[in-house]
């Protein structure tokens, strides 16, 4: 009989306690090393607004929509040169850039920054010509979340212009205004506002020289427009031809592999386009474009750990409770890590909306570098003993 004080019994008790402590520690690690944020896409889906469905629009909105489409079409058929001022305002500061711009149909747009700080001999940046029409899905998003209205006619840089306003459905504060040149149909000024009415983004011509005006009726509808009664959701021919686009099946497969690729984000941001982007290295980046029809956000996801040494012009910041690296340009640029993925967000949305968006995406808690490493170690060691892993 082994008594209470028997060395063998004491050694056995000690062994059980020691192993128990180790197992308890491992269990704590395995449950505590996960990154903060949503655990899967389903959480995001449930939390956010439903996928927008096209709604019926009346004649007043149809006219506004027609003007917007005319502006998009004029961009591709009108030659012009001018100076343009870009501005952005946020809680962390403001940015304004002056640039010379010019456009030739079929050859695209050129641009040269002339703001203070830019090199005098700076090369022109070339921008490829667009399709010249508004995307049908983007219009569906816009009309589903905003009401459109043709405002009063005003003069802008000495030219007669018609103002189109976009107001959130159920809201009273205008979220966006567009000044459309009556003569050329070009967009002369564009302003976006936050929920309090403060301007957050603007781009406006300071002067404009239309060298080859567009031909055709001033307010004629593009042939692709179906009279605006009900805007269908369909992909443009350009998007269908893009081999880098990621379809629903590919996105679903990637989600099963652990990628967090939400269909919907807060602030009414709906996944609008998904692409695989070539970047230096072995793996491609996933580029998800979200929009509510007016504001937009691009989320880039890359597998790896964040190397902040290459981030020029960024500074450590906090958006809500999330530690990020931010740069306040014309677009808000935010970079952060969530698990084994690095996220980069580029957006023109107001700070309040961005705060909601980032809070809903995966993000590491402070000091989780070691914990993430421990988590990977537990996962790997668990796979050794799990025959189904």
């Amino acid at each position, binding site marked *: 009989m082994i008594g209470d004080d028997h060395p063998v019994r*004491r050694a056995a008790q*000690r062994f059980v*306690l*020691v*192993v*128990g*402590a*180790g197992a308890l520690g*491992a269990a704590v690690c395995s449950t505590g090393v996960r990154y903060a944020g949503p655990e899967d896409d389903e959480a995001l889906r449930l939390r956010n607004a439903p996928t927008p469905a096209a709604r019926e629009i009346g004649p007043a909105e149809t006219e506004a929509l027609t003007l917007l489409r005319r502006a*998009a079409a004029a961009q591709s058929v009108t030659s012009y040169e001018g100076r343009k001022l*870009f501005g952005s305002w946020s809680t962390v500061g403001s940015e304004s*850039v002056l640039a010379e711009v010019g456009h030739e149909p079929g050859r695209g747009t050129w*641009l040269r*920054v002339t703001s203070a700080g*830019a*090199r005098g001999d*700076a090369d022109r*940046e070339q*921008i490829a010509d667009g399709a010249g029409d*508004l*995307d049908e899905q*983007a219009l569906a998003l*816009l009309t589903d979340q905003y009401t459109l209205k043709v405002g009063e006619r005003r003069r802008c840089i000495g030219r007669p212009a018609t103002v189109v306003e*976009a107001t959130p459905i159920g809201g009273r504060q205008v979220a*966006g205004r*567009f000044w459309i040149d009556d003569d050329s149909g070009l967009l002369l000024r564009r302003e976006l506002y936050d929920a309090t009415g403060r301007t957050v983004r603007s*781009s406006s011509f300071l002067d404009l020289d239309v060298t080859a005006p567009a031909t055709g009726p001033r307010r004629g509808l593009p042939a692709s427009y179906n009279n605006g009664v009900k805007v269908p959701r369909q992909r*443009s021919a350009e998007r269908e031809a893009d081999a880098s686009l990621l379809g629903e099946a590919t996105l679903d497969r990637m989600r099963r592999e652990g990628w967090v690729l939400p269909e919907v984000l807060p602030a009414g941001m709906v996944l609008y*386009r998904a*692409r695989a982007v070539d970047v*230096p*290295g072995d793996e491609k*980046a996933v*580029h998800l*474009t979200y929009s509510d*029809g*007016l504001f937009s956000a691009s989320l*880039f996801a890359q597998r*790896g*750990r*964040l190397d902040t040494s290459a*981030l020029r*012009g960024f500074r450590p910041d906090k958006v809500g409770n999330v530690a990020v690296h931010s740069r306040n*340009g*014309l*677009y808000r*640029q935010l*970079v952060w890590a969530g698990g084994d993925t*690095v996220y*980069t967000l*580029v957006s*023109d949305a107001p700070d309040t909306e961005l705060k909601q968006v980032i809070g809903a995406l995966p993000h590491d808690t402070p000091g989780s570098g070691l914990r*993430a*490493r*421990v988590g*990977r*170690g537990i*996962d*790997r*060691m668990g796979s050794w003993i799990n025959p189904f892993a």
Partner: protein
Amino acid sequence: MTASRRDPHLGELAAALVDGALDHNARDRALAHVMRCDGCRTEVDAQRQLKAQLARLAPPPLSADFAERLRALPDRTPVQSAVGLPSARFEARFRTPARVGGDTLGDRVLNPRTPGRAPAPVLVRAADRPVDRPSFPRPAGVPIGRGPGRRVRSRRRRIAATAAGGFAAFALSLGAVAVVGALDEPPPVAPQIGQFLTEHDQGTKGMPGNDSEVGVVDATSTRR
């Protein structure tokens, strides 16, 4: 002590008596003999005088060489090293009270055993016992070193050892999984901000609120 029995003389124990090197039992017996034996009393007195004279002498100067050699000696004496006992325990042997009727050196000299006869009992008063540690009441029947206090201390020691072992096991486990996790550490990623800005413009082409030049302007500023 019987009258018919004659105590042996102190002999070499006289110096030990003067030096206080005898345990209390031997000392009492030696003192009792000195009271009765003139020769030994003279011997003891001579030893005391010699010791007093030596004490009055100035200590001899310590040569630097000797001091160096003393410092070079190991902490343990050869006896300690040979026996392999901790020094504290080694010293405790000298402090252990002599057993009544025991066979210490003094006992063997002062109370020699006769064949077939048990050693003569010596009564020692409690006040004469050397007091070098506090005495705690020990329940009857409980052997030395097995009391409830020792049991509590032992249990605490076991708990502390187990906790330390558990902590060490946890730290080792944590270190092991961290090392394994480092093997799976993903590659560093430096986001291509300039490229992403233009990609954003490309991705938002055809949107009513989009201005396809903004991203290019931003990308230009990232290169400045």
